[in-house]
């Protein structure tokens, strides 16, 4: 299967800095895949998202080496309009994701479609669908600036979903959300996955993240790619005291294995709650 996104030995340094923010990033994402990115704060997760969306080098200058292709075509051959239709980006900070030119939440959600020249009837239909999907009907007539951080984040997500791009980049989308909002976002990610959309997800809520991702990229504090592959396989080589955090299921498994309560597996570890429960049950049955 041809990769949808391909990064080949990508290295990036911000302007006026000596240290690289990203080093030797190399992976392929196929269509319909949900990819997770984890790493400590400052490890370059957002920078990598900016590279994939081509905000680097189009907006942030600096030294970008290596190649980034989308559908086999280098990113610099796409126009900004094409990219905005292909790649939807939900940013970390909800306070700057409001356009600042719309008076109501409903209009804010439809702003991207207005810019794309979609007819008013289609925009209204699509916006109504997004309001329904994200339960925003109570705030649809409010000024976006009067919303809380979590509500702003929801509006930003709705605005990108309305454009219906092929690829979604979620950069810590739940950082401002309550548990109910977080669950809603992950349900949406699940829906996107079932619709065959490609999702790139940066998230610190590892337990939730692991339930949805197909592939995982791990960055160290230097911005270097230290692992790429199926989460249950690559997390087998990590231990709890290393710099990256591990999902609860993996930690429980490692502790139990260390105490010889379950056998040690070297090539695969459970990463979700269901998987650890299943592992324990399987072990008990075989005893």
């Amino acid at each position: 299967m041809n990769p949808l996104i391909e990064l080949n030995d990508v290295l990036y340094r911000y302007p006026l800095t000596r240290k690289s923010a990203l080093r030797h990033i190399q992976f392929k994402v196929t269509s319909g895949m949900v990819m997770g990115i984890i790493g400590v704060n400052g490890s370059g997760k957002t920078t990598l998202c900016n590279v994939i969306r081509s905000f680097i080098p189009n907006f942030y200058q600096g030294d970008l080496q290596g190649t980034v292709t989308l559908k086999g075509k280098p990113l610099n051959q796409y126009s900004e309009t094409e990219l905005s239709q292909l790649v939807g980006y939900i940013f970390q900070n909800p306070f700057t994701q409001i356009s600042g030119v719309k008076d109501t939440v409903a209009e804010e959600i439809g702003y991207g479609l207005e810019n794309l020249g979609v007819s008013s009837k289609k925009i209204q239909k699509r916006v109504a669908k997004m309001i329904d999907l994200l339960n925003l009907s109570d705030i649809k007539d409010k000024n976006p600036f009067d919303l809380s951080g979590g509500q702003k984040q929801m509006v930003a997500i709705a605005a990108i979903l309305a454009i219906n791009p092929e690829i979604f980049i979620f950069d810590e989308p739940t950082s401002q959300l309550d548990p109910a909002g977080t669950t809603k976002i992950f349900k949406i990610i699940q829906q996107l996955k079932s619709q065959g959309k490609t999702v790139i997800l940066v998230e610190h809520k590892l337990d939730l993240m692991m339930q949805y991702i197909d592939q995982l990229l791990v960055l160290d504090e230097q911005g270097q790619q230290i692992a790429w592959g199926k989460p249950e396989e690559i997390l087998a080589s990590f231990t709890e005291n290393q710099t990256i955090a591990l999902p609860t299921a993996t930690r429980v498994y490692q502790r139990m294995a260390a105490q010889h309560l379950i056998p040690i597996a070297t090539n695969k570890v459970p990463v979700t709650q269901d998987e650890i429960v299943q592992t324990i049950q399987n072990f008990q049955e075989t005893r």
Partner: protein
Amino acid sequence: MTHFIPRLYPTTKAWLVLGIILCSIFIPGYWFQYSIFLVALVLAMLSGVAKRYTSLFLKSIFIISLFIFIIQTFLVYHDHIIGSWYIFKVSSTGLQASLTMTSKIVAIGAILIWFFQVTQVKDIAAAMQNAGWNKKLIFVMLSTMQLIPQMTSMMNTIADAQRSRGVETEGNLITRMKSFVPMLGPVVLTSIEQNEERVLTLESRAFSNRQRPTLMVPVNKTKADYLLSWIIIIIMLGIFYWGVFK
């Protein structure tokens, strides 16, 4: 009728504003100009915004006009003095100049206040977009209108943070100034910093698309707008001709 005028297309109302401004400038005297205050008041009543209109007019245009009137009439030296009291001298030319000057301010101010009370900025922007104005220019206009409430909200957040750290933010003028001035730096710098991310937000919403944008809620001219526009233009031309050339 109450809701008819605010619903009119912005340019329909703009023709009236333009006509009145031109007539106020070129028609000699001051009676026509002062009468515009009453015309705007009647329009405001018909539009259901009389209270807001009167309040805004009294707080702004009335005070400015009164100030100019007093200075021009009593303090600026003119010939043909018709009365004096201590250092104050009133002349017929000074009085005439004050009336002419303030009447124009009253006319233009009154009709503009009425216009902005019955026309939403987003409708003006929509009309500009329909007329093919530059998208970036419209964006600048709209975002500037939102800037003040945004900065006010940011200042309130900083003031709350200061209060929670024990900084005195309320009290007499000096105390308020002491807490207000240090806030300006963070407010301005934060606004500039946020602009960077906002640009990326706009790019994500296809702002760079060169295709002509559409509107989710279209603002269109109705038959009444076309008819009223022509009636307004003909009446204003008539007033202009009668006032200037007759």
